[in-house]
């Protein structure tokens, strides 16, 4: 594995929009990634294995819930810091960023936002350090883009709830200690429950043979008459807005993360184009290569500015779901496009594990699908513009 010499492009002097602390966080996470992750990621991805030993390190650099309050063992950082951490992780691999996104935005965030004080104190410090890992159960085999149609359900049995159903495409499921599960009660209202590994009837079979996010563990959550203690219900939320609030937070992180993947592809393509000689000159000297590189940098720059502005709005608690949706959709599609162009520039080498391009490209096929597909995000913007939902 070659030494990771990544440098981020900054065509519009974006760094001037960041605080010194933002830059310190970025440099810190980047240094950690270069030391701990870059040397091993290709091997783990090729073997389709999650590098579990990095979890504590992710906790130490603040990758788990960095913007939640320090009193729960979290970072107490702003939203731009959170975004920067996601960018730096996904610069290495979308699968690792997914692990952190799920833990921070889909497990810790709902416990913080919708949980009781006891639940916060019980789970958040351990989740922040990585001592405990979590996953998020919303998607079902027959309910992806339409989560409101979920069939997973729980019944009030007096001293406990009885949970039945199944969730699919769940990042971190195979090794998670807890799952934040969204299920309907007898009245058909959606609620969140914290299900712990070891509860009878709860299993997490792993999803094998993925061609994407291979360095991240994905699985199912199966609930067969699982007795869930009543104190494990998230008390302060009901309805679809619960999981959707989590998705807003995670999608925001993805918008930053996708820029990281795109930057890595661009950086690799630029260096390769300057070194690879054909017809007695570097391929970077040919017009069609320059066109690709110029367009890549332009799109990355646009995404950086869009996402920075979204971060400012998020810090002011003014970022709307459609605004977050637009950034997620735009940036992931941009990253996929950049990855494909970078693959072209790398020629045959671009398909090998010597370069990160195909890994990013395959990862991004998941990223463009999960947390709202590209098409669903178009419809969110469509509804925002017209006031008319076109989902069904």
């Amino acid at each position, binding site marked *: 594995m070659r030494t990771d010499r990544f440098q981020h492009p900054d065509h519009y002097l974006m760094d001037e929009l960041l605080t010194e602390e933002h830059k310190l*966080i970025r440099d810190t996470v980047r240094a950690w990634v270069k030391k701990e992750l870059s040397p091993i990621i290709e091997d783990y991805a090729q073997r389709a294995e999650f590098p579990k030993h990095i979890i504590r390190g992710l906790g130490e650099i603040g990758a788990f819930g960095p913007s939640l309050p320090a009193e729960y063992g979290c970072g107490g950082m702003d939203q731009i810091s959170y975004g920067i951490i996601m960018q730096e992780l996904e610069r290495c691999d979308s699968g690792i960023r997914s692990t952190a996104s799920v833990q921070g935005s889909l497990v810790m965030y709902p416990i913080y936002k919708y949980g009781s004080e006891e639940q916060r104190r019980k789970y958040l410090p351990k989740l922040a350090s990585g001592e405990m890992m979590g996953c998020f159960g919303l998607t079902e085999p027959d309910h992806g883009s339409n989560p409101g149609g979920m069939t997973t359900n729980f019944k009030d049995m007096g001293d406990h709830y009885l949970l039945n159903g199944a969730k699919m495409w769940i990042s971190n499921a195979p090794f998670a200690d807890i799952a934040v599960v969204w299920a309907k009660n007898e009245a058909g209202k959606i609620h969140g429950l914290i299900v712990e590994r070891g509860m009878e009837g709860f299993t997490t079979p792993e999803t094998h043979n993925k061609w994407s996010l291979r360095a991240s563990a994905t699985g199912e959550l199966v609930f067969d008459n699982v007795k869930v203690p009543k104190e494990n219900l998230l008390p302060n939320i009901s309805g679809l807005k619960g999981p959707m609030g989590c998705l807003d937070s995670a999608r925001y992180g993805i918008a930053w993360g996708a820029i990281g993947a795109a930057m890595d592809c661009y950086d690799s393509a630029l260096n390769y184009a300057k070194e690879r000689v054909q017809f007695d000159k570097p391929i970077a000297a040919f017009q069609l290569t320059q066109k690709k590189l110029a367009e890549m940098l332009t799109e990355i720059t646009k995404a950086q500015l869009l996402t920075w502005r979204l971060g400012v709005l998020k810090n002011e608690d003014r970022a709307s779901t459609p605004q977050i949706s637009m950034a997620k959709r735009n940036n992931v599609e941009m990253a996929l496009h950049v990855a494909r162009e970078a693959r072209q520039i790398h020629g045959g080498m671009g398909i090998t594990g010597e370069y990160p391009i195909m890994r990013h490209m395959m990862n991004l096929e998941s990223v463009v699908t999960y947390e709202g597909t590209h098409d669903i995000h178009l419809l969110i913007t469509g509804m925002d513009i017209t006031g008319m939902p076109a989902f069904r």
Partner: protein
Amino acid sequence: MKILVCISNVPDTTTKITFSSDNKEFNKAGVQYIINPYDELALTKALELNEAAGGGTVTAIHVGQADAEPNLRKALAVGADDAVRIDAAPIDGFFVASEIAHYAKDKGFDLILCGRESIDYNGGMVAGMLGELLDWPSVNVITSISINGGEAHLERDIDGGREVLTAKLPFVGSCQKELTEPRIPNMRGIMMARSKPLQVLPVAANTAHTQVATYAAPAPKAGCKFLEPTQVEELVHLLHTEAKVI
């Protein structure tokens, strides 16, 4: 122990070096600055020594202008307890050493650590000058330190081997690569760095012995010429007529 660590603020190793049109100044515009990598070793070692001793303080000191403060803040995030910036535009190694000596002389430090050299000007003078100015032992290019009571056991590289020596505290040491692995800050460190003290002090001695007259960039490297193993005569000819080394 009470340890002082000298921090130099240097251009990132990937920086393209250019000079002003009269070649008298280095163009700082657009340059990213980092903590001198050898100084990071000094900082990390200072923290490790105190951790091994079960306590102590580490002060990071820098002689330079306000633009170095992000890197002092980074030193605090890595684990230094406080930071001091002597507010001056340093002129040469003696200038830096005399400012640090002036600050350190009555503070009761057990040890001053710095990098073996800064990677921009590569002077490698500050440790030796500090020893002289403070009248302390000074040991360069240290690859190992252990401290027992008032005495340090040190190892340093010498030509073709290794020298093992002892020094009484307090002393000045300059740090070499093998000494330790530089520490990366963590989130808790970054949070704590926000509230750690960073003191700015006026320049005291203000003495330099040298001035930069002009800078010059090295001549661009000529391209490589490849010869077949059989072309010995051609090789000798080129070494004589083109490279002019024989």
